[in-house]
């Protein structure tokens, strides 16, 4: 199967060194393969290289050395123009602090996820799609609410809907429950389970074992080295 269908993510000997002085080797010869449809947790304390790995996976940063294949294609050498295109169409981000625009409704925040797509669809069509996505994360009743009137869990669900509206190859979550209480954490983790159940590739970066426990597979990162956990 792996021979016919490329993995969602393939990192081969990926290095990331921040130029000095002194130079910092944030990632050391990382090898990571994430098959399509997998739910992976990347665990590690702060300063371990987690954020660097997230930035590389999300095409916000470039590896200093090594190869990154996204959906089978080498993206390690792409120019910013093409990396932006890949971010727009292949990657959905979910952040710890949600990053919703306060002045816009849930629906408008989700629509923002499709703003930079190459293909522009009529506003009404896009709004309908955003509404369906919000409904799928259980917020059909909150379409017009601004983020300030939503609970933390609801805000993160809006953010997840924004990440999913483009049907990304990879859903990349950075501490998705870091700002949430236990009740809301459970809701969001349940939602991620559902999203994964639809066949979505999900990568969660976290230091929380409870969050990591929801994933199919866990890898740990310490001092820039990646190891399988079990």
């Amino acid at each position, binding site marked *: 199967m792996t021979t016919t269908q490329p993995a969602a993510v393939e990192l081969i000997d990926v290095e990331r060194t921040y130029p000095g002085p002194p130079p910092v080797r944030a990632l050391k010869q990382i090898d990571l393969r994430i098959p399509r449809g997998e739910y992976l947790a990347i665990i590690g304390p702060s300063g371990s290289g987690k954020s660097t790995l997230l930035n590389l996976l999300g095409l916000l940063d470039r590896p200093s050395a090594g190869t990154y294949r996204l959906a089978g294609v080498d993206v390690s050498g792409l120019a910013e123009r093409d990396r932006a295109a890949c971010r727009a169409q292949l990657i959905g981000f979910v952040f710890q602090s949600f990053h919703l625009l306060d002045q816009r409704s849930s629906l408008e925040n989700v629509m923002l996820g499709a703003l*930079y797509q190459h293909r522009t669809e009529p506003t009404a069509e896009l709004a309908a799609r955003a509404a369906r996505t919000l409904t799928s994360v259980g917020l059909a009743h909150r379409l017009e609410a601004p983020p300030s009137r939503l609970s933390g869990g609801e805000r993160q669900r809006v953010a997840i809907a924004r990440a999913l509206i483009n049907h990304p190859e990879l859903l990349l979550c950075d501490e998705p429950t870091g700002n949430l209480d236990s009740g809301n954490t459970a809701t969001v983790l349940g939602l991620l389970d559902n999203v994964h159940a639809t066949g979505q590739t999900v990568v969660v970066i976290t230091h929380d074992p409870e969050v990591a426990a929801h994933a199919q597979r866990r890898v740990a990162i310490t001092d820039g080295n990646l190891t399988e956990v079990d």
Partner: protein
Amino acid sequence: MRPWAIEPSRLTLRQLIAECASSLVARPGRSALTALGVVLGVGTFVTVVGLANTASGQISSAFDALSATTVTATDARVSDSGPFPYPSDTDARLARLHGIVGAGTIWHLDVSPDQVGAGPTAETLSTADVYAVSAGAWRAVQPRVTQGRFYDAFADRARQRVAVIGAALAKRLGITTLTTQPAITIQDVPFTVVGVISSSVRDPELLLSVSIPRGTAQALWGSPGAKTAATVVVATRNGAASQVAGEIPAALDPTDEHAISVTPPPDPRSLRDQVGNDLNALLVVLALICLAVGAVGIANTTLVGVVERTAEIGLRRALGARPRHIGAQIMGESAVLGGVGGLVGTSAGILVILAVSLARHWTAVMSPQLALLAPAIGLGVGSIAGLYPASRAARIEPTEALRR
């Protein structure tokens, strides 16, 4: 070569405008305050340029009415040796010229003030001038008569001892009515007051003075010397002034055209342009300073806004925005603010021009180009002000921005 069938990120103009509008509307107070600088700048610009136009319009219409139809000729003798250049039939000679409404001679008589008095018992006056005014000059000077009448050419020829005095002087002399035929004396020569004038368009001096017929003055005190600046005042029809000015010397003395010097009126058009240019240049510089201050205001607030919105910019980059999309949005917001500020400023400026014009009873003069240009200036100022913040925003690293 692109390895991928993935099309580049895109932001259409319509989407860009919608994003700019949405961001500006989200912070209405800040947007309004930011635009205020441009409102003031463009408003000042429109106001000063419009008022300058309006004011120079008034200046020129004043010139058109009076100066453009006034020609004066002065005695060009350098010493008393030459003959007095204005013959006794000056009025008649000039009246024959086409385009002349009225013409006459005026000179100041060298009689000392305390020799002017009202009636034999009245106290003497210390501050009244006496002018010799030919009968024809009244039609050129065009004063308003409140009582009595002007003396006519007959009085001039017959050397009658009559006088026309200014209303202010009449009041000081205690002359309230002419029915009693009041008299005033000049160097013990009695004159009957036949008229009182209350306004004088071309020669306001006459309002404070005693005017007596030219023939009478010449008979009593002789022809004026070279230094008394005897003048011929000529009122012409509109547009005839330059033509008439050229004909006057020959009409008065065909043998010596240098006996008098004629001052034609200034060309009203060149005068208006000159006044307008001086005024405009100064005020436009002021308006430009206002605009510059407005631009700095927008640049500053937009820059602060960029710093505050770092996280949002990072998010947009994560959603696929290219640096140019971020830059375009920041610049677009700045340009929209400038454009809206320009519109509001133009409207405010026009209102100010109208208000000032109404208060002063002026005719507001406003070029349509200015009304169209001013909002465009606002747009341009906003765009320029947005350049630096936009380039800063475009350079924000998403990895840093999203850490917040």
